[in-house]
C-alpha cells in the first residue's frame, strides 16, 4: 500500500464573498512519491475546482509555487509529503504578502523592489557585438554565480521577520541579485546601485536573522550576500568620510 489518506487544511479566501480567510479541509489519497503540489492538483481536478494557486514547472525552477507548508515557506513542487511529519498538512499563502485569493499572493511590492536595484549589467561603455564576448574566467564567474541562482520564489521574504515588520525593506532576494551584478566582472554599476542598497531600507534593515538562507531552495544565501554588502558599504563609508579626496 503506497497510498495514504492525508488531510490538508488549506487557507481559502475569496475577496468577492468573504471578509477574511478561513481554513478548509480536504482529504486526499496521496501516492508515496507525491509532493504537496500533486495533492493540490488532485484537489483542484477532482474535489474542488475553486481552489486557486500558482504553479507551472513542477521542477523547482519557475518559482511560482511558494507557499507556507506547516508554517514553513516551501516550494510545493519540492515539498515531498513523505518528508513531512505525519498528520494534517497545513497549507497557507506565503507570509508577509497580501493575499489576493486562496494561496495566491500579491507580488507588486517585490517586483518594484527588484526593478529599483537595477539588476542588469551596467557596462563602462557599450561593447560592440563585433568585439565578441567578454573574457570572464571561471574564477570571476564563481564570484557571483551562487547569487545568480535565484528563482524569485520569495520564500526568503516569507521567512524574513524584518521584511514582515518593515515592509519598506528591500529584502533578501533583491539584495542578493544586486550583489550578483556588483560582483560580475562585466559590470561597473555598483555605485549606482549603492544609492538604493546603502540606505536604511537597503542592507541596513537586515539584522542577519539568516532565515532567508535557511529556507532558500536554491542555496542562494542572500544572508551572506547582504553581510558582504554591509562590509563593503562600511568600507565605502570610511573611505568617503575619512578620505574624502579619494572620492572620484
Amino acid at each position: 500500500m503506497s497510498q495514504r489518506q492525508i488531510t490538508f487544511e488549506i487557507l481559502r479566501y475569496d475577496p468577492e464573498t468573504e471578509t477574511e480567510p478561513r481554513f478548509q479541509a480536504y482529504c486526499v489519497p496521496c501516492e508515496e512519491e507525491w509532493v504537496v503540489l500533486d495533492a493540490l492538483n488532485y484537489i483542484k481536478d477532482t474535489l474542488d475546482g475553486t481552489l486557486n494557486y500558482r504553479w507551472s514547472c513542477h521542477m523547482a525552477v519557475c518559482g511560482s509555487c511558494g507557499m507556507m507548508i506547516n508554517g514553513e515557506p516551501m516550494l510545493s513542487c519540492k515539498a515531498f509529503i513523505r518528508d513531512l511529519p505525519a498528520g494534517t498538512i497545513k497549507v497557507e499563502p506565503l507570509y508577509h504578502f497580501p493575499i489576493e485569493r486562496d494561496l495566491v499572493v500579491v507580488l507588486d511590492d517585490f517586483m518594484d523592489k527588484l526593478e529599483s536595484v537595477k539588476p542588469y549589467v551596467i557596462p563602462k561603455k557599450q561593447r560592440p557585438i563585433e568585439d565578441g564576448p567578454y573574457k570572464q574566467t571561471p574564477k570571476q564567474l564563481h564570484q557571483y554565480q551562487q547569487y545568480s541562482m535565484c528563482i524569485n520564489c520569495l520564500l526568503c521574504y516569507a521567512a524574513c521577520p524584518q521584511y514582515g515588520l518593515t515592509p519598506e525593506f528591500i529584502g533578501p532576494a533583491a539584495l542578493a541579485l544586486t550583489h550578483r551584478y556588483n560582483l560580475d566582472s562585466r559590470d561597473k554599476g555598483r555605485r549606482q546601485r549603492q544609492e538604493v542598497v546603502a540606505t536604511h531600507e537597503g542592507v541596513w534593515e537586515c539584522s542577519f536573522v539568516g532565515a532567508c538562507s535557511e529556507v532558500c531552495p536554491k542555496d542562494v544565501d542572500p544572508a551572506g550576500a547582504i553581510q558582504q554588502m554591509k562590509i563593503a558599504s562600511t568600507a565605502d563609508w570610511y573611505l568617503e568620510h575619512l578620505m574624502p579626496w579619494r572620492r572620484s
Partner: protein
Amino acid sequence: MAKSNKPIVWGLFAAGGTVCAFVIPVMILITGVLLPLGLFGPPEASYESMTRIVSNPVVKIVLFGILFLALWHAAHRLRITVHDFGIRNDQLVARAVYGFAGLFSLIALVTLLSF
C-alpha cells in the same frame, strides 16, 4: 532614499562581535568564576595581583580595547533587539545605548590610566 550612516556604528559592532566571540567567554570564566572562587587567593592577595596585572601597559591597552568593543557591540545589538521587541523609538534608544557604552568606555579609560 538617503544613504545610511549605519556604517560607523556597524563597523564597530562587527569588530566587537568578533573580538567578543574570541575572548569574552574565557574572560567571564576568569573574572566571573575563577576569581570569586579564589584564583588569586584571599581578597588582599588578589588585590595585589590584580593591581600588578592591570598596571602592565599592554594589559591596559588590550583591556581597554576589549571593553570598548564589547560595550559598543552590546549597545548596537541591543538597539536592534529593542526594535525587534517592538519598541520603535529608535532615535531615543540609540542615544541611550550608545551613551551608556560611551560613558562606561570613558570610565574604563580614565580608570585604566590611573594605574
